[in-house]
């Protein structure tokens, strides 16, 4: 059993003028193995900032609060140490790495995470199997990481990594955005498969409720203005689907 505990997290970014803008204003959230949490909210509410802060992106500065993984201080870890501790972030905008093939990248990452290189025969089989499940052409393994990938290919590649690296807690940042319905189903199945195989805790960050038809959340948290404004079970997602975010936005409240 793994627990990711986020307590009263405050996060700022440096603006171009040099002043700091606070984006997260005290977020408290606990994710345990096997749980699926959906984080929903309007654009600019700080959902992605939460994801990147937990992963350790240097752009974000944690000004107060804590993040622990089974009691270990995540904020004291470097980015790669967080990943090796069992955290995974599926990125909304995965980065191109020219000249580095998918297969080389995946093997290097797997070796880093496990602390030893995977056994060749089982590794090739695992990789082919996972790619087949995600409806990815075998030739994909020889392409350069994210170079020339379509939006759907990038997201499949992120979930492929989740399946192969077997994290304990996976944060999926808008994995559903830009996917057509077929790709959404394939990617969602991949998330469910990975979760079933590893018992990982999953944080699903999304603007839309669409992906929640394929991945059922245990908890739904509504993010507004850097805080959790409301929490509930799957029924909260249904309500958001019907009503949208309007009732959380003060400037439209009087309408």
């Amino acid at each position, binding site marked *: 059993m793994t627990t990711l505990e986020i307590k009263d997290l405050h996060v700022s970014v440096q603006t171009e003028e040099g002043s700091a803008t606070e984006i997260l204003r005290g977020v408290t959230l606990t994710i345990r193995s096997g749980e699926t949490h959906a984080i929903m909210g309007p654009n600019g509410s700080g959902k992605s900032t939460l994801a990147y802060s937990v992963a350790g992106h240097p752009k974000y500065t944690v000004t107060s609060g804590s993040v622990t993984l089974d009691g270990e201080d995540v904020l004291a870890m470097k980015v790669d140490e967080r990943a090796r501790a069992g955290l995974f972030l599926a990125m909304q905008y995965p*980065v191109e790495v020219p000249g580095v093939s998918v297969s080389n990248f995946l093997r290097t*990452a797997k070796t880093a995470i496990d602390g030893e290189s995977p056994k060749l025969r089982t590794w090739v089989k695992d990789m082919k199997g996972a790619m087949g499940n995600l409806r990815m052409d075998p030739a994909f393994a020889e392409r350069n990481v994210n170079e020339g990938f379509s939006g759907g290919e990038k997201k499949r590649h992120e979930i492929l990594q989740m399946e192969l690296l077997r994290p304990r807690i996976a944060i999926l940042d808008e994995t559903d955005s830009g996917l057509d319905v077929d790709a959404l189903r394939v990617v969602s199945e991949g998330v469910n498969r990975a979760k079933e195989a590893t018992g990982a805790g999953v944080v699903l960050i999304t603007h839309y409720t669409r992906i929640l038809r394929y991945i059922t959340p245990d908890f739904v948290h509504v993010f507004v203005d850097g805080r959790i404004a409301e929490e509930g079970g799957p029924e909260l997602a249904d309500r958001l689907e019907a009503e949208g975010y309007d009732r959380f936005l003060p400037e439209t409240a009087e309408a």
Partner: protein
Amino acid sequence: MSLLTPQRPAEGAHTHDATTLVPSQSRAERTTSYAVADFPLPTGREEEWRFTPVDRLGAMLRDAPTGACLEWAQDLPDGVTLGTASVEEWRASGAPAPADRAAAVAAAHSGGVAVLDIPAEAELDTPVRIRLTGAEREVVHGHLLVRAGRFSRATVVLEHTGASEYSEVLSVVAADGSELTVVTIQEWDDESHHLAQHDVVIGRDASVRHIAVSIGGGIVRINTNASYTGPGGSFEGLGVYFADAGQHLEHRLFVDHGAPHCRSNVEYKGALQGDTAHTVWVGDVLIRASAEGTDTYELNRNLILTEGARADSVPNLEIETGEIVGAGHASATGRFDDQQLFYLMARGIPEDDARRLVVRGFFASVVGRIGVREVQDRLMQSIEHELSGGER
């Protein structure tokens, strides 16, 4: 009508047609001469010297013999011969004349020309290997002629190591239908200087690949000129360089398309690391009116790994005929991308390994094109060594 197509959809790439370019001086108008006196001592303000630290090169530009040489060691596959020729014989070989003072001095004072002959129709399974080693830092004038016979196929690897102030003229004359790869590896000690003029003369339907790998040396300046004596010729110029603090690595290419239906493709990639690391890439292409059906592309990419390094990159394209297949170039210099680093580290890969992966990836396309396995492996090792901050 002209038909100009970009060959690669690279960022920063673009193509030209004959109407867009108004050169101040044609590349064809530069002086070439056997007489040192035709080249005044450079001040550093001349177009061809403006990036070079000429104040540190006085000894190499002095019009006087030194009598010093490098130590030679060579592997010659069967049939390949290494002999000598007089400077007069070299002039008659079809090799172009010196194009700057350093080359004129080297040609005038080398005392003779080493001649490597690859017989006609020879097909070499193993590369010709010539290792040149300098024992101490003194001015050496080197002069080498490589002749590839008709329809021969060969690879020649020149390695430069040790301490020297080496001023070199290398003439490569590839006869009709030959396929020749010349690799020049610069792994000098840090205080060494190397000034070179490499001329590649490509016969009808011949195909020559010139590959420059510059890793070690205080000042390395390699001027590579390609020209064609008949139609159907192909030139591929590849280069990889890695400059550390205090190093000046300069590569100048001039592809002179004077014959119809010839191709040229130039790809140079360099990384820079450390304060005052300086690289220069100048890629001149001239398509003369006689060179209808030319297809040319050149690309230079620089990856700046740390603050304080400087990469100059200057592509020039002169086109005197619109009847060409394609002409384009691309040049880009970028800093190490922290987003790439974050992405790899977020997958558990430690920072040093992630950096190595990105830099290896950056060089992968050009290294993969070298096609000489031992050179590729050695180069990747050298790059690893540079990245780990190893002293040479």
